């Protein structure tokens, strides 16, 4: 036995670098992961960002607040309504504006619909990364299509909505839209257990995701991870409950949390959150108050001298806007705190010692969007 060991001394195996480069099918956008591999096992990875950096914060400094709203659609382009909401809430907090009840309820309904659409896409792409080729993804896109049609009916565009305005929304709900939303709730609630049957129980899916990329509670908090990834590690923290904004306090819903923070928990939390969002929409649509939520687009707001920070619960985590005004129409400084930026920073720690297939699984379960990381 020793002789074999001796020989094995002189056969040195050295690691090799593989570029899960900016152009790779499972990096959810233009992300460049430089993986150090020893055979099949990944030893470490360095993350290279900036391929989608458009300088949003520099652009914001030469735009008025209403003009910047179309740019917030392009941050997390899968949940643009939630970006609009976060930006508009931050602007209203700085300007000290009040929003009437109907606009708040409409905003909640729309934000939750967009959360479902975003989670659907997150789950579909995650299953696609695990190799369930295209079938769960097409089911998710088929359901997401219904939501996108409602948005197309409501504000005229399918992906970049530019729907929320400072002090209200652009269009009011018409009768058909409300009927469509109610139909969607019924349609979606029995489609969800399709996913439970197809994915959650599946033994191959479990084997691929159980205890893969375990994110401990302390590590998650330390890295600033927020949203479903944090809740999957067992931290019961959701801004809609703990720091209610835009009328979330008068809805009953509970926060799904995971147990040991592995990829399966992150998937399960997203699936449960779709059910919770359906509950919220049902309550909100039922109790839609009267009033006129629309706002004339032309009104420009002069920003007071001072700063305000407001964050809202995006499908991927907490999106924060830090706006500093100096009395003119354009913000003096606008900082965007994207959730995927901190969620992605955990990848270097989770990837040590797992296989290439797991690297793809972890990246899929973290559900990042490069648009908001690179701004």
């Amino acid at each position, binding site marked *: 036995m020793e002789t074999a060991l001796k020989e094995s001394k002189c056969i040195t195996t050295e690691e*090799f670098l*593989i570029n899960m480069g900016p152009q*790779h*099918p*499972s990096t959810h956008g233009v992300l460049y992961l430089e993986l150090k591999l020893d055979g*099949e096992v990944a030893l470490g990875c360095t993350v290279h960002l900036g391929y989608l950096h458009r300088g949003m914060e520099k652009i914001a400094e030469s735009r008025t607040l209403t003009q910047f709203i179309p740019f917030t659609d392009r941050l997390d382009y899968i949940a643009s309504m939630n970006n609009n909401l976060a930006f508009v809430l931050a602007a209203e907090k700085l300007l000290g504006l009040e929003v009437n009840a109907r606009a708040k309820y409409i905003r909640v309904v729309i934000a939750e619909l967009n959360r479902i659409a975003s989670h659907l896409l997150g789950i579909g792409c995650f*299953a*696609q*990364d*695990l*190799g*369930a*080729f*295209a*079938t769960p993804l*097409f*089911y998710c896109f*088929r359901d997401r299509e219904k939501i996108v049609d409602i948005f197309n009916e409501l504000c005229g565009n399918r992906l970049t909505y530019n729907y929320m305005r400072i002090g209200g929304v652009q269009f009011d709900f018409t009768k058909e839209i409300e009927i469509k939303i109610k139909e969607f709730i019924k349609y979606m609630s029995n489609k969800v257990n399709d996913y439970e049957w*197809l*994915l959650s129980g*599946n033994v*191959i*899916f479990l*084997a*691929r995701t159980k205890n893969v990329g375990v994110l401990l509670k302390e590590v998650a908090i330390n890295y600033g991870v927020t949203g479903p990834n944090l809740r999957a590690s067992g931290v019961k923290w959701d801004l809609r409950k703990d720091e209610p904004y835009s009328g979330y306090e008068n809805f009953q819903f509970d926060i799904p949390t995971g147990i040991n923070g592995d990829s399966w928990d992150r998937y399960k939390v997203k699936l449960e959150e779709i059910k919770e969002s359906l509950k919220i929409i049902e309550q909100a649509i039922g109790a839609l108050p009267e009033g006129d939520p629309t706002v004339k687009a032309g009104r420009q707001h002069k920003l007071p001298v001072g700063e305000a920070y407001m964050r809202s619960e995006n499908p991927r985590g907490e999106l924060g806007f830090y706006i500093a005004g100096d009395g003119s129409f354009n913000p003096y400084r606008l900082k965007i705190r994207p959730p995927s930026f901190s969620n992605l920073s955990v990848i270097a720690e989770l990837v040590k010692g797992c*296989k*290439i*297939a*797991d*690297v*793809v699984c972890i990246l*899929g379960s973290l559900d990042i969007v490069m648009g908001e990381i690179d701004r």
Partner: protein
Amino acid sequence: MVKFLDIIFNTGIGVALLGFISASAMFLIWWERKVSAWIQNRFGPMRVGWHGLLQPIADAVKLLLKENISPASADKLVWWLAPFFAVVPAVMAFICMPFDKNLIARDLNTGVLFMIAITSICVFGIFMAGWGSNNKYSLLSAMRAVAQIISYEIPLTLSVLTVLMFANSLSMQDIVRAQSKYWFIVYPNLTIAFIIYIISATAEVNRAPFDISEAESELVAGFHTEYSGMKFAMFFIGEYTNFFIISAIAATLFLGGWQGPFLPPVVWFLLKTYAIVFLLMWVRWTFPRVRVDQLMAFAWKVLTPIAFVNLLIAGLFLIKTR
């Protein structure tokens, strides 16, 4: 003179077989796209010909017209030879495929052994492709493919062995005739053998939950990343011909080959094969991919022990009844 006639007769069979193989490969490609479309609530190819029937031919012509790029620092000979090693063994396995009572190219008395031996040669093709194209992703995928195919040979051969014990002859025609009373799948431990066969056969052909060698999400396109044009088409046809072979073997070994009440035997054979093909396609479009080490553990820790125990029980059962 007779030898000359023989040669013409054999080349005639060969040409007929090649015609059937390429037609069945084309049909399988079209049908796979249709089945996956139905499962995913979409139409699948509809544009070229009625319901896209001419789509495979359109693809073939497109691939023919594509430029043949070979990577600069590739190991030229190995890289050039790889597609042949992927296709030729797949085609040769049709020699002892029993389509009908007498519609068989050559009824070797060691038919099954020949088939299993030939189909395991296409591992060379994959490894040569992986090594030849001198790129990290292909090398990784080739290593995976070799490990996977070798470790799934054992459960495959064991499950086929249990069938041979019942049919006590290696020739395919005898196996089919032995199932004249009832099909082999009816016997309890042969159903287990059937399940083991199906699982390890999908792994043999790099399909469905075991397609870790050309795993789109990890290794981009695995061993045939560097191939384009006709060479890529060769891999494609090789893969679908292998797919047809394993379902045809499963049909002959477990579902009684060309035997059936009133339909002509050839139709019965094709019906059973395409039933198994549908089952494997259905499995492919439903399940996620297994990880490399789980795949190995599954082969060695689950399939092989069960195959051995099944063999033992089959032996005891045969001693008692015969």
